[in-house]
């Protein structure tokens, strides 16, 4: 079962890639055969979706859940007969975790594969790289990752009428839980993050609400990627008298920092709250290092609701019982279903129709519960969960215990020219 399904998708990709190879051969002036490029779409033709995932490179760990979420949704859509009588077809592009490659792949998918719309890209930098491409080609991009929110100055990477954000932003992921954390553990925050826009803006937004609530930031440091040593940072944290370490490190630096933080025996003296470490990274940390830390997201594999139970059952049937899902994969899943609903609603496959269709659309079967895409700023209304990592967890099923949750959190309006 598993083999057949994934085999199908690979096959599609392989065929399209081979077509691409033939084009390259043209560069070498050997020969060229690219039939079927100028073919009118007919009712039976599939709706083509270009999916850009980090399949290789530094963030491959996230890439699996990322593309798997979309693939699962497309299987479900096609099993139900497709949309307007047409099936979805995925054409996969590897971003290699490089913004430069995203530009190449987005153009390939749009210009050569003639996809109807795009989904994916992972980091903010990757999304920004795709921004000018989808703007000039007038294609929709469905973006799945938790991110820093939309500020006008980063147009066309955000505040873009061709982009829809399916992941949470700080006013959804952090704000709802600030009060609880402050009341329980204290008002002094030490912020540590990787040195780029997501941690910086997330901290800035967090700080705003924190100060309103009477909190205090006693330290703020940003760490360059691939930093192996954390002695001085750990010392600063110790000296700061913080109650809570607010953690926005990403990738392997998360692991490096947490291993050394734990080794320094600091776990017992501080509370750590991370807004980055979903199932995949927490698995990488292991139970000893992650135990007792707080995490907040819109989705966790262990949340209990009928949607999620059914979703995970289908997911595991397709990708195996040990496969990991996370907030980003679920956002990709929602994105595919909601795009299908939007196309169904407007009865048309075009950028304008998809944009109009996605506005204010509701999806009942989201794995995290009912979700809604806001028409005003293309930002998803999502639940928000605060979890604590269980001591001695053995797998994703018992990794997190729920502390508190809100079923539906409206984000602050995007700081853009609204409506988009």
């Amino acid at each position, binding site marked *: 079962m598993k083999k057949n399904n994934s085999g199908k998708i690979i096959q599609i990709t392989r065929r399209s890639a081979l077509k691409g190879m033939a084009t390259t051969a043209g560069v070498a002036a050997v020969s060229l055969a690219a039939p079927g490029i100028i073919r009118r779409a007919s009712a039976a033709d599939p709706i083509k979706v270009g999916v850009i995932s980090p399949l290789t490179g530094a963030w491959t760990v996230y890439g699996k859940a990322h593309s798997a979420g979309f693939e699962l949704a497309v299987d479900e859509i096609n099993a139900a007969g497709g949309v307007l009588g047409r099936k979805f077809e995925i054409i996969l592009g590897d971003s290699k975790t490089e913004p430069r490659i995203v530009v190449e792949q987005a153009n390939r998918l749009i210009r050569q594969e003639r996809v109807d719309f795009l989904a994916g890209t992972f980091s903010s930098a990757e999304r920004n790289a795709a921004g000018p491409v989808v703007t000039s080609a007038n294609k929709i991009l469905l973006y799945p990752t938790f991110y820093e929110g939309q500020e006008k100055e980063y147009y066309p*990477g955000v505040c873009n009428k061709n982009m829809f954000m399916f992941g949470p932003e700080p006013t959804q992921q952090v704000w709802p839980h600030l009060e609880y954390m402050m009341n329980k553990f204290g008002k002094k925050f030490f912020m540590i993050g990787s040195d780029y826009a997501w941690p*910086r803006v997330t901290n800035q937004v967090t700080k705003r609400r924190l100060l309103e609530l009477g909190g205090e930031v006693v330290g703020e440091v940003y760490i360059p990627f691939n930093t192996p040593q954390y002695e001085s940072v750990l010392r600063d944290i110790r000296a700061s008298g913080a109650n809570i370490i607010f953690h926005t490190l990403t990738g392997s630096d998360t692991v490096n920092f947490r291993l050394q933080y734990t080794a320094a025996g600091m776990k017992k003296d501080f509370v750590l709250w991370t807004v980055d470490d979903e199932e995949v990274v927490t698995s990488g940390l292991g139970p000893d290092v992650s135990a007792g830390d707080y995490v907040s997201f819109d989705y966790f594999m262990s949340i209990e609701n009928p949607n999620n139970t059914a979703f995970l059952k289908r997911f595991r049937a397709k990708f195996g019982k040990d496969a990991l899902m996370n907030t980003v994969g679920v956002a990709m899943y929602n994105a595919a279903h909601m795009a299908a609903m939007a196309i169904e609603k407007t009865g048309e496959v075009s950028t304008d129709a998809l944009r109009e269709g996605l506005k204010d659309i509701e999806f009942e079967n989201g794995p995290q519960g009912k979700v809604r895409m806001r028409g005003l700023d293309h930002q998803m209304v999502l639940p928000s969960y605060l979890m604590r990592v269980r001591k001695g967890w053995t797998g994703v099923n018992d990794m997190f215990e729920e502390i508190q949750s809100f079923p539906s959190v409206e984000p602050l309006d995007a700081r853009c020219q609204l409506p988009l």
Partner: protein
Amino acid sequence: MKQRTLKHRSLLGTTPGDLLFSEPGAALIVFAILALLPVFFSGYMIYILPQYMLFGVLAMSLGLLWGFAGLVSFGQAGFFALGAYTMGLSMKSGGGIIDPAYLGLLLSLVVGGILAAAVGYFLFSAGVRGTYFVLVTLALSIMLEQIAVSQSQITGGWNGMFIDRMSLNLGPFGKISLFDDAPMYYVILPAVAIIYVILYTITVTRFGKILNGIRENEDRLISLGFNASLYKTGVFAISGAVACFAGALYGTHANFVAPSLAGVLFSTEVVVWVAIGGRGSLLGVLLGGILVASFSNYLSAITPEYWQLVLGLLFVAVLLYFRGGVAGAVAQLVNARRAK
């Protein structure tokens, strides 16, 4: 009849047949094919080829350094990214009295040239050896990447910077938009061809000959009274300026630059292109950049892991068995056939 042949020989140093098989002849054919491609094709290929041609120029900037002066830089991508950022900032500034795109292109030549000259002179004047030079350029590209990340108010940090597509400003005759693929293609292709001609000319002038001498035996050149460090500084400055200029064009073509463009991974990819293309031939290096980048893009969709592995093995094989790369192997083949 005989006289005419002789005349040709004196004119070009070669017979027409030789010309066909010589590097400029082959280059002529390659550029002619590239010039005709947009007539027959459109879409993605015409969009992406200029980017790969600019990668080819980046490869040539290293080819000049490695093949002709015997210096390997692991930091060429640093200059490339510097060019893209220069272009982006210049476009943002609006340019003042001259067109911002032209300002960006001009500045990229100056900035790349000066940085390379400064670093080069600093090192070569103290007799820093080729192997250390590799490590310093490696560190240079890491430093440029880190600066691009940390100076986020200028560069946009890790999230990158948007760069508008340039237009061709013809002064009183108005502006030609380069928004579409074909016009942009026909701006970048001649630029690449001109850079090729300039670099090729450099290699056959006295300067190029002296560089060759330095590569073969630096001490001998020094004892003959040449200031080797000055020549090495010169060639590194040219290489830096060319890489930076190509980066500026790349930036305005891709509309985006992020710090990882300066990084070690991309820098060393350039080394692989040059080795496979054939460091002894600028044309081979140019094609190496274009073709390896193209195949990387397409094959990565089929076997992302194995393609990288194949590329690595190919790199080692070239170093061990075909030191001239593909261009060297082709030249050998042609010579062998003509010798018969």
